[in-house]
């Protein structure tokens, strides 16, 4: 099944956004996101990936252009309408890059219960969802702990559980593997794959080429001018080394060999470095 045959969840058209009215964070970005797909938004630091996720989550709004969610334009007025906001917040969830930002409640239980409570679910339902989310991520033993006392990997799990308790259809993940140890990274990739197999749509902002193949089928590449530079499958994007170098996702470096020969390579920061000698 191709993307075009699926329901279009987000239509992003010529979106411009700036935090300070001087420097653009997004500069005419256009793309579509389809139901059930795994999409990676690839870009270097500061290219606008996180900002785009916040706009898609209805936390900020396009200053020019527009973002439509299931055909409806996202505006602050719309998000202030309870009927729409309830449906939207239950369906779309953002996992922030910095777990400390996301974990503001006094205990893990309260953190995971926060979203269902705000969306007026019945107490018994809240209790059941929290138990399900904690059990599903194997962190039931943490339920009474203070989130700020947890390790980085545990914090990430609790941040994910705090969203999982909403049972969202659309996951927006901002640099989910950043700062995680290999075991936590591996767990997170398995988790993303499992959500996708269950029919969820996964949009991941990352600059980690190493995990791309595991978390995405389609890739959007942002350049350092805060625009979309390219779109394609993971294989297409990873094979275009010039594109990756141009967008600051790979770099050239030099090796000095014993025989005084200098070799220059593209360095993609993947598990297996592709050391192609340049002529």
């Amino acid at each position, binding site marked *: 099944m191709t993307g075009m045959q699926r329901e279009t969840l987000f239509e992003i058209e010529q979106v411009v956004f700036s935090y300070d009215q001087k420097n653009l964070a997004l500069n005419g970005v256009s793309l579509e996101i389809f139901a059930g797909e795994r999409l990676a938004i690839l870009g270097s630091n500061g290219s606008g990936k996180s900002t785009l996720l916040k706009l898609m989550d209805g936390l900020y709004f396009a200053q020019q252009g527009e973002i439509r969610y299931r055909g409806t334009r996202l505006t602050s007025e719309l998000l202030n309408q309870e009927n729409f*906001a309830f449906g939207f*917040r239950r369906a779309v969830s953002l996992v922030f890059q910095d777990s400390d930002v996301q974990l503001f409640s006094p205990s893990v239980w309260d953190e995971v219960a926060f979203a269902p409570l705000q969306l007026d679910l019945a107490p018994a339902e*809240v209790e059941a969802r929290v138990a399900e989310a904690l059990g599903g991520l194997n962190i039931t033993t943490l339920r009474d702990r203070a989130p700020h006392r947890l390790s980085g990997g545990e914090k990430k799990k609790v941040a994910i559980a705090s969203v999982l308790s909403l049972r969202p259809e659309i996951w927006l993940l901002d640099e989910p593997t950043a700062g995680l140890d290999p075991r936590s990274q591996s767990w997170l990739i398995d988790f993303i794959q499992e959500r996708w197999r269950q029919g969820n749509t996964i949009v991941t902002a990352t600059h980690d080429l190493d995990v791309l193949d595991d978390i995405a089928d389609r890739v959007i590449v942002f350049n350092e001018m805060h625009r979309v530079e390219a779109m394609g499958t993971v294989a297409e994007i990873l094979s275009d080394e010039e594109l990756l170098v141009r967008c600051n996702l790979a770099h050239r470096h030099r090796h000095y060999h014993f025989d005084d020969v200098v070799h220059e390579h593209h360095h993609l920061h993947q598990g297996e470095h592709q050391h192609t000698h340049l002529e």
Partner: protein
Amino acid sequence: MAKSNNAIAGAVERTLAEVTASIENNIFAEEMTHKPGMLQGLDPRAKILMFLALLLAISLSRSLPVLLGLYIFSLLLAWLSQVPLGFFIKRVWLFMPFFTGIIAIPALFSFITPGNPLLVLWSNPLLVITDRGVMTAAFLLLRVGASVSMGILLVLTTPWNALLKALSVLRVPKVFILTLGMTYRYIYLLLHTANDMFLARKSRIVGRMDSAGERRWIAASMGGLLSRSFDLSNDVYLAMLSRGYRGEARVAHTFAFTTRDWLWTAVALAVAVVAIYLGR
């Protein structure tokens, strides 16, 4: 001079590190809340009612023996709750000279509290400690000491999240509770950030800066930290909005009042009523 500058710079670093460690150990570590003591086993709402009644009695009492009795009652509660008495007494009285002492000490003297002279410290100008001054200072210290003891006992025996939930159940405005909870949580984070900033600077300098340089660096760091805390507050607000926050946080609790809760609430209320009556 250089030696004194070094001493000041060293003191600033040590103070920040010690403040961080002290807050982390004493406030954020909730070891005592999990001990199988009397107060730990009570419903947080019962404890809040008990301590409110006792605090009211302390505020209204005009008798030193009654205040002393209420303070001893707090020690009894601490003992029943397996709070080490030495630790508990030190925690209350160690900071008393710095805060209440500043107010209580001037009250000893005749120029603030006239009365019969007890001790002449200076004859010209006259500086005399009076009997009424001693009584006023003793009242103040004992009243504050007993009140702080009750407050600390409540916090030591109740997990922070349970305390906040109990406050919300008792109709304290939710925005106040949410702010309190987040302040508690993010002070921890900002203190760590401040400590990291000190360490990062330490790793990049050889020797010590002079005190003017230290002051400039501290001012710049405070500005940086303030800016970070603004960014953090904005991001936290976004994270809350993202999960459905609409200006009023909803909280859930699973508290249940048992016979023991009723019994201890009644005991505390009775003690408070008797103390108010005797201390009129």
